[in-house]
Structures are given as C-alpha cells and as structure tokens.
C-alpha cells in the first residue's frame, strides 16, 4: 500500500507524457498552455479563499466549538473525535473552499502528518461538494423535484466520512 502511494504520481506523469509524445503533440507547449489555465483558475478562487478563511478564522478563534463540545461531551462518552474535524465534515458537502480553509488551519496547528492532519486530508479527498453540485446540475435543466438525489448523495458522504475515520486508524 505504501509503495502504491509512492508510485501512483510518477506513473501518471510518465504515462501522460509518453502518450502525448506518441500522439505527436507538442507536449511542452501544451503543458505551458494548461499551466497558464491553472494560474488563472487559482487566482480566480482567491476571493473565495479570502472570504472563507475570514469566516472560518472568526468561527474557530471564538472557541464556540469548545462550548459545543462541553455540552455534547456526556453524550459522546469515551469516544474522542478531534474537534476541528466536525465543522470540516459538516462544511465539506457545501463548500470545498470552506473545508479547505479548515484543513489549512489543521495543518498549521497540528501538522499534515498528525492523526487529525491525515484524517482531514482523507476526508477532503474522499467526498465532493454534494449540495453545490446537486443545486448546479438540477438548476441548469430546471428540475425542482429531485426525489432522493440529495439525501442519497449525503448518505454516500456520511459513509465516506465513517470510512475515512476507520481507514486513517488502520493505515497509520
């Protein structure tokens, strides 16, 4: 498993570039063209990143989470869940930028190789912005009766979160 994690990226790179050369496209110019698009995309998300970091910082620094935890502690019993993972899991289906901002905060405070750092990484990687995607996709074709699409998607996300917690424990 550890080996697969190490070779997946180099294999991707070599396959993509080799295939490009085989198809006789100008791989270098194509790379530059794509890289330029990536540059534009990254700058385009900058306002959203500022907005989300601004809001998340206020939320986390107010320590309202500590207050919530004190209330629900008796219910949770012996189970300890890293505190900051809860808002991240809740925000993940709505805004990828918001959960990214929390993951950034977790890396800053605990490091990417801590348990919570790894859990946040797996969590961010294993689900998508379900609510946003459903709103956009159904919105464009003007469908209002979406039946079980939303809670089916959220159910899949919940299973992903549970799997992420178990797998992070198993792998590391």
């Amino acid at each position, binding site marked *: 498993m550890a080996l697969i994690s190490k070779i997946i990226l180099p294999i991707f790179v070599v396959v993509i570039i080799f295939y490009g050369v085989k198809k006789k496209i100008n791989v270098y110019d194509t790379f530059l063209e794509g890289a330029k698009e990536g540059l534009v995309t990254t700058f385009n998300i900058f306002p959203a990143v500022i907005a989300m970091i601004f809001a998340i910082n206020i939320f986390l620094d107010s320590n309202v989470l500590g207050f919530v935890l004190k209330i629900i502690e008796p219910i949770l019993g012996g189970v300890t869940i890293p505190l900051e993972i809860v808002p991240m899991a809740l925000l993940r289906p709505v805004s990828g930028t918001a959960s990214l901002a929390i993951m950034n905060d977790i890396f800053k405070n605990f490091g990417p190789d801590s348990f919570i750092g790894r859990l946040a990484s797996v969590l961010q990687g294993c689900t998508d912005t379900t609510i946003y995607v459903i709103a956009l996709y159904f919105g464009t074709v003007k469908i209002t009766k979406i039946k079980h699409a939303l809670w089916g*998607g959220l159910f899949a996300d919940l299973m992903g979160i549970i799997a992420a917690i178990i797998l992070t424990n198993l792998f590391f």
Partner: protein
Amino acid sequence: MVGYIWAFLIGIGIIYSFFSGNIGVVNESILAGVNEALDLILNLLPVIVLWTGILKIAEVSGLLDKFARLLRPFLKRLFPSVPEDNKALGYISSNIAANMLGLGSAATPAGLKAMNELQKINPKKDTATPAMITFLILNTAGVTLIPTTILALRVAYNSQNPGEIIMPAIIATTISSIAGLTLDYFIRKRQDKWH
C-alpha cells in the same frame, strides 16, 4: 446556501466571542486572516499549475477520452434506462473520468451536457429521472485519483510523505460510492414495485 453559512459562521463567532471574552483574539484574526489566505493560495499555486499543465497533455492527446471509453462499459450497467447509443453516456463517462483525474474544470461542462441529454429523454420535465439521480450520486461521491490541492498543501506544510493519503482516500471514496449506489438501487427497486 453558501451565503447563509458564511454569514452564520461570522455571526455566531463574533457574538459568542463577546460573551466568552475571546473578542481580542477574534479582533486580531479578522485582519491576520487575509494574509493567511494569501499564504494558502501561494501554497496551492505551484502544484495546481504543474498538474493542470500535465493534465492538459492528457486532454489534448486524447488520453482522457480513451480513459472515458474504458469506463463506459462499466457505467452502462448503472444506467439501464438510458439507450446505449445516447450521447448522455459519453458525457457521463467524460465527467467521471475528468473527476477521477482531478480535472474539475473539464468535468463540469461534460456533467452539464450529460444532464441536458438526460433531460431530453425525461417524460416529466420538472422531475428527476432515475438516471439523473444515479449520475449525481456517483458524481458527488467524488472519486479522485490525484487530489491535487490536498497534495499541494501537504507539501507546503512539510509532510514526510504527502502522497500517503492517496490510497486511504481512494478506498474511502470507493466505499462511499458503493454505499450511495446501493441505496439508490434499492430505492429504485421499491419504486418500480409500486408503479
């Protein structure tokens, strides 16, 4: 939706900090946060630029289409109500293939085209068809083989092995996709019985 949550996070944070005495900390974080956002963007930038460059080669060379064609026979089974020669299947494959490679910008146009094609064969225009629901559950489970932004941030914060989270993430996302599709399958079966 995002707007309400954004306002909620700010509102609840500031109001609570008045009562808890954390207002000093919050006051500092309001301005410091902007610098943090710039750091975050600068941390993401190199890896995203590198990866979109490499994926552009996959797109232009036709590798992405080839990958989508590989997925097609498998996806066909998930959409029994869609005729085999329908364009929707091609767009669905492209969408899932692009998502798997972390090509969000290429995935969305293909996904929206798939929805348009599915809407054309929809008898009730305001109601989601089974195929649309299956597609969205599959799409939002978000199978990603190379999570670019996560890798970028892990590199920026000096992770010993940034890629170590790829395998557990792929397994977790597979579990969530299977769970979503299974639930969808049983709901569809039950509805078929009633009608």
